[in-house]
Structures are given as C-alpha cells and as structure tokens.
C-alpha cells in the first residue's frame, strides 16, 4: 500500500524558532508537495518539487523554504516561526502531475 509519512502529527513551537517538518514517501514518486490547510480556505500550495534538489514556489511561499536532498524525502522549513503559521500542514506526492497521495498532516501550533 502506498504511503506518505509525516514525521509528527502534532507540534508546538515558539515564535522565532526554526521549525522543520519532514515527509517521506515510499512510492519512488518524482513529485512532492507541501500544502497548508486552514478552515474556510481549503488547501494552498506552499512549495513543490519535481526532482531531487529542484523546487518551485507555490501560492504562499513567504516565510517558508524547502529541501529535497533525496528522492523520498521532502522537508518544509519555517525559518522564523510566527503565530500566523499555525496551521495544518499536508505533504503529498505523485508520479507525475498533481498530487495523488497525501500524508495525514502535521498540526503545527506556534505560541
């Protein structure tokens, strides 16, 4: 069975901290995505990657960066966490095109 695994289900951090969210997929997929999900706003794309070390900005990249050093792993980095980054973060992957498989999300709270 295909699997996208996010390292933490819940995370609490303080403002100004550097935060790392990790995602691993076991399907040898080329594409990986980071979305943010907020009530009433749906899903918004932060960054995606179509190959190792390759990345593209999505709709809301400000305040975030990403890293993809290995094909199976895609990391989202909050350089200096702020309270408006409190949200549910979803990682996804696909062999080609748009996201097919999502992880179960990391609920991040910034205090």
């Amino acid at each position, binding site marked *: 069975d295909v699997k996208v695994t996010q390292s933490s289900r819940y995370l609490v951090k303080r403002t100004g901290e550097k935060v790392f969210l990790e995602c691993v997929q076991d399907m040898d997929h080329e594409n990986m995505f980071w979305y943010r999900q907020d009530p009433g706003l749906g*899903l918004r*794309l932060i960054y995606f990657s179509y190959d190792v070390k390759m990345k593209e900005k999505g709709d809301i990249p400000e305040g975030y960066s990403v890293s993809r050093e290995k094909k199976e792993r895609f990391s989202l980095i909050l350089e200096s966490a702020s309270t408006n980054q409190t949200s549910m973060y979803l990682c996804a992957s696909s062999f080609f*095109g748009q996201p097919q498989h*999502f992880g179960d999300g990391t609920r991040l709270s910034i205090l």
Partner: protein
Amino acid sequence: QQQVKQSPQSLIVQKGGISIINCAYENTAFDYFPWYQQFPGKGPALLIAIRPDVSEKKEGRFTISFNKSAKQFSLHIMDSQPGDSATYFCASRSGAGSYQLTFGKGTKLSVIP
C-alpha cells in the same frame, strides 16, 4: 488569483439520498478537475477526476458532471451512506503539464441514518 468556488459549505443528507456538491471556475485554461475526499484526522485522497472533453464520469456511486460552457462541475454521490461523511474538495488544474491545483474551500458532508 484564479478561483474555484465551491458550494454548499456544508450538507446534510439522509442515508440513501443523493448528495450534490457544486464547483464553478473562472479560468478557461483549466484542463483537469479532480475531487478529493478527506476524513477527519486524515489527509485528502483523490476520489475521482474528469477532463473537459467529456461531460460525465462515473465510478461506482460517485459521478462527476461537467458543463464546459457554464464553467461548472459537480459531484453526485448516489445512495449516500454514513461512511461517505467527510469533507469534499473540488480542484482545477491550470493547464497541461502544470503541477498547480486550485482548490475549492471544501464541503462538509454529513449522511444521517
């Protein structure tokens, strides 16, 4: 920013009834229209998708109807079951080869016995 407008925001349907969720888009370059299903505590899962060269696609109890001239598409769930209770998102892809999806804001469906 290109939008996808989804309605209703929430929907209550009796078991055995038909659930209908609607989406409207603006960008005529959108060329792929998926629907995702999300259960509480889980990530979204791709449910069914359609391309604009067909007017309808059916998979089991789930049907997408597509109206290109009106720039609208809808999800119909026939014989709705309590296990269908979830949040449903429509989305649109901004052109062939694009990785970008524009999502609707979601519809929370509750199917009551």
